[in-house]
């Protein structure tokens, strides 16, 4: 039956892609030490992936925090534990919401930017030209962007969580009138340094995944306008799914 054959073919294609991705990743890891010897390129990419994402991350963080404040307060007041708003919000944001939302936003903003840049260079023969000029495009173009993303993600995650906690506080303390001191002290009592570490590890893992997917899709895009567009779309989709799957895996490991 051709349906079964098609399904098997797409499974095979999937595994082939995963294999190619793994090889790509290993090559990037191998090249990383030499990449760090050219800080200028990496700094530029940290700027592109991180600094340029600040606006979207901070805005989203603030609003996510404020919504958590609203919803959390409403929920907790039903069971009479409004004062625990700080604890619940901090733990949720730190361990789950912060890294995951930051990663999804990152994939959308920085991931697509990276994928389309590299894809465009592929389509206009710039990567080929580099190869001919005996410059390894992996070192010159791909690696700095990968490292830029990996460095930026944990930082963005931390910024997101910090700003969103401020948003929670804005609603909980300023608006609903929870005692400020109690808000923070309850939080401090329940949050362990391991929780902070968990959030940052997730940020790092998601950063690795999203950056890898973005550079991979861009590098392997078909050298046409449609090809670049498709690669960009795939970047967002695959990064998002990967984030959620990895979230489960990392949580299960760390817990």
């Amino acid at each position, binding site marked *: 039956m051709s349906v079964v054959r098609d399904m098997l073919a797409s499974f095979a294609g999937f595994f082939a892609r995963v294999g190619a991705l793994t090889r790509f990743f290993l090559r990037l890891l191998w090249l990383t030490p030499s990449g760090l010897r050219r800080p200028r390129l990496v700094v530029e990419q940290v700027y592109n992936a991180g600094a340029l994402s600040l606006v979207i991350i901070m805005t989203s963080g603030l609003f996510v925090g404020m919504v958590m404040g609203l919803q959390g307060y409403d929920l907790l007041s039903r069971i009479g534990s409004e004062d625990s708003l700080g604890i619940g919000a901090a733990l949720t944001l730190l361990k789950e919401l912060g890294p995951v939302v930051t990663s999804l936003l990152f994939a959308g903003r920085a991931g697509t930017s990276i994928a389309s840049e590299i894809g465009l*260079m592929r389509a206009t023969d*710039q990567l080929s*030209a580099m*190869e*001919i*000029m*005996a*410059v390894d495009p992996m070192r010159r173009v791909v690696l700095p962007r990968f490292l830029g993303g990996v460095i930026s993600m944990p930082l963005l995650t931390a910024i997101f969580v910090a700003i969103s906690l401020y948003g929670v506080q804005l609603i909980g303390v300023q608006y609903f009138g929870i005692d400020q001191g109690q808000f923070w002290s309850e939080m401090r009592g329940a949050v362990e340094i391991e929780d902070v570490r968990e959030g940052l590890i997730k940020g790092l893992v998601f950063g690795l995944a999203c950056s890898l997917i973005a550079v991979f899709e861009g590098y392997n895009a078909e050298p046409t306008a449609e090809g670049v567009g498709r690669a960009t779309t795939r970047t967002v989709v695959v990064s998002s799914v990967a984030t959620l799957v990895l979230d489960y895996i990392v949580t299960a490991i760390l817990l």
Partner: protein
Amino acid sequence: MSSYSRSANGGTPVARADDIAVLEGVHYSVDDKPIFRGLDIAIRRGHITAIMGPSGTGKTTLLRLITGQILADRGTVVVDGSDVAKLSRNGLYALRRRMGMLFQNGALLTDIDVFENVAFPLREHAKLPERLVSTLVLTKLHAVGLRGAAHLLPRQLSGGMARRVALARAIVMDPDILIYDEPFAGLDPISMGVVMRLIRSLNDALGISSIVVTHDVQEVAQIADLSYILSEGQVVARGTPRELRDHPSPIVHQFMDGLADGPVPFHYPAPDYYQQLLHAPEARP
């Protein structure tokens, strides 16, 4: 317009010791579709060799075989004494440092300006003092007539100017081989004239070997020393422009004279015209 070609030296080219690149019996297929079936090409040192043919004959693929970006399924590709298939990654890169390539659309790096684009190979391969880099870059830009455009960005350049900058970049490392992929495509007559003049003068002044892949028959006829015509994955003709003009083969004739129909048919394969019209489906009510 004065002729740019050297004196025709007739004779069938056979691989000689002073050939800078030789392809022998090269077969190459992509997804079971054969692109080359037994290609024999010899690029002579110090001369301009043109490679022509109808669209889709794989001329760009040929260039990638020469630069080692792809490997032949069968046959050998020897460039400057080295078998491309047997080179290590470092060996391949060392070989490529002695080549320069001009891409169809220039392929300049879009995020840096003209000066930096031309300086790119220098910066990547050598640690030269800035003054020397500047001298080299400006010299090459001057050779292509664009020294004054050094600080423009690629997107501010016209097609012809971009191509000239790419040419400056291709020669900045003083290569032994220069490869031109469709250098005349999409240019106005003036730019075309400029490019033609540059190809010829660079070849002679720098003592390099040039390979020009194109289907602009009239243009290349004025500058090529030797031309190959490819069709159906093989060489169907070789010779000086004059020899080719008088070539007996029908496909060469169709190509050189730009005839709409001939060995390369006008009509894409289709069922019988009369039958198809007669049995055309009725219009839906």
